[in-house]
């Protein structure tokens, strides 16, 4: 995995500038701006319907923004489809994980982009792919008994989540979008996945973490963007607690001036 290890914070990996998204008359996102920086974990929180999912879909190329721009390493970028976002090294781990249960770890890693030989015969380079996948998994300190030839269907939820995140990191050297990575996990497995996310941050990945779990957010995130009714109602950094986030999420506290908020309703 070619991590972006320069760690310089001079330029964000991905800048979101005044992004709005309308679905007919419904304004799902209203002029939201924030940065995702290499070597940092940025949290994206908000109540149900606040626009988190829409934002992830805009960033991963599923939806095009109605207005506003995305700057990838300073360059304005438009994604026509998820494929283009992936080619631009933005990888998303959705809650559904998108793993094939009958496949082993290595096969899932390379699905759709297998290494092959003998030209048009497209014979898979199985050994090589296993080796690369094992290397990547090892670097992240993920322990899967049985290694990369273990089938996903035999794995626990935490192991699956780890495989999905490791696969995203394997293909992306720039930006990782993680959608509720611990939502379906137990305590011990959550701890393992959080550790994995920290490892990725330490290796220089720019991570956007969408989460409902304020404990995770408090522990992991360097800064947090709070969405409320499609707007950015808060932007916390430095010393903040999960309770601070909750105040912004519920609207008890807001950076938006009250008139704008009222008008937005």
């Amino acid at each position, binding site marked *: 995995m070619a991590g972006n290890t320069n760690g310089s914070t001079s330029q964000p990996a991905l800048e979101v500038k005044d992004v709005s998204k309308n679905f007919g008359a419904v304004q799902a996102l209203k002029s939201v701006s924030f940065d995702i920086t290499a070597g940092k974990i940025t949290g994206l929180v908000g109540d149900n319907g606040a626009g988190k999912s829409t934002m992830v879909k805009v960033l991963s190329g599923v939806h095009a923004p109605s207005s506003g721009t995305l700057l990838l390493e300073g360059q304005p970028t438009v994604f026509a489809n*998820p494929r283009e976002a992936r080619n631009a090294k933005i990888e998303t781990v959705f809650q559904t994980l*998108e793993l094939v249960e*009958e496949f082993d770890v290595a096969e899932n890693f390379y699905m759709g*982009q*297998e290494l*092959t030989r003998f030209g048009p015969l497209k014979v898979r380079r*199985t*050994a090589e792919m296993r080796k690369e996948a094992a290397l990547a998994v090892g670097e992240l300190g993920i322990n899967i008994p049985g290694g990369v030839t273990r089938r996903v269907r035999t794995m626990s939820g935490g192991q699956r989540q780890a495989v999905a995140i490791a696969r995203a990191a394997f293909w992306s050297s720039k930006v990782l979008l993680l959608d509720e990575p611990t939502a379906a996990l137990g305590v011990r497995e959550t701890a393992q996945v959080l550790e994995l996310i920290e490892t990725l941050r330490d290796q220089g990945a720019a991570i956007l973490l969408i989460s409902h779990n304020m404990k995770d957010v408090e522990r992991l995130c360097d800064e947090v963007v709070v969405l409320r009714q499609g707007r950015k109602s808060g932007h916390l950094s430095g010393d903040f607690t999960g309770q601070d986030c909750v105040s912004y999420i519920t609207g008890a506290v807001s950076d938006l001036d009250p008139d704008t908020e009222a008008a937005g309703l």
Partner: protein
Amino acid sequence: MHDKSTAAKFDDTGVEVAAQSMRESLTFRNAGIYYALMLIAAIFTWWTYSGSGIFYLNASNVENVLEQAATPVAIIAIGMTVLMVSGNFDLSVTSNAALSAMSIAIAIEHGWFGFLGTEGSVIASLGFGILVGTLGGLVNGLIHWFVGLNSFIVTLGSLTAYRGLTLLIANDASVDVRFRKELTEEQIANNDRETEEGLFLGELIGDTIGDFNLLLIAGLGFLIAAGGMYISGQGAAPIRVAMAAGLLGVILSFFVDYTTSISHKLVVLVVLLILTWGFMTFTSPGLHVYAVGGNLEASKAAGINVALYRIVPFMFVGFCCGLAAVTYIAEQKNIEPNLWFGRELWVLAACIIGGVSLTGGSGKVMKSMAGALLLYTLLNGFQINRVSPSIQDTSIGVLIVASAAAYVMAERRAAAKGQI
């Protein structure tokens, strides 16, 4: 939960592998179908020998079973396996095969390709039949994908529609399959009736390709398989099994005279089987067939062209139907419009006995092949031992359900042990 696999295994490149060890690849779950086949062959050997003193597994009877199984069930089951792995299935296969066969017969009857000379018209007519079969599959695939209809419904319709078309083009009667040779001046002068009536394909190409030792052929097949596995970098255990089986077959062939005449359709079956097995096991498009059957959304997200991988397997089944029609015509003198009526269920049965998942994502062509052989071994053994047809049917029905139940229970047991 995983204490049994704590002793990590590593392959030649130093990668930790959970891949099949020798012991695991011989478990009931992974090799049960082959055990069942051997068991049934053993039972019939004993039964037939004690009953009539005949050695059931003699070379010509083995070739007999292979031939009975090949057309249409085994050949179409290969295509059906690929289709089922991709997440669909096809009820219209034997109607489609009958339509292909009838198309060939009519092309010959009306001399559509007569301008190509005798050989040319044979090849063109057979090719035409395969094309018809492939198109039949394509139509199913296009309707399934673009209309978004479940493949059960689509092919339930084409099951009837293709049979109807067959009856229509045949005028509800059987059609002779004769290739007219170009007559020489002398034959015309002599009014040589026999030549004028034309030849059956079997008479043109000969009934068989000659006599071969089955052990030698099987042995070479295993060695080729081992070579393929080695080149593609598969695990060591299956390679060793295939190598051992191959060498055993080749060595035994020097001492045991297991020679019989090999028909054309066996050659077609074996070539189709090896090519399909190689494609599904070793290539990246082969893996994508498993991917779209296993998780369509994930395949889409991985950038796999899911429409292609959902439609082409339908075409491949159709292609296999065309091939089955060709191998049938090579040995027949006329084609009935109700050819293979109801046999599509045998094709599905062969796949299910072979352990192919009805929901897609898993299945092996070799095992479906073994499933087809199991069915026809039973049928052949029953016939040799003069078992009444009603008991034959009952036994085969029981076998289908029992094998499916065995798979489910084996999966459940392995899941309970945490092995899968």
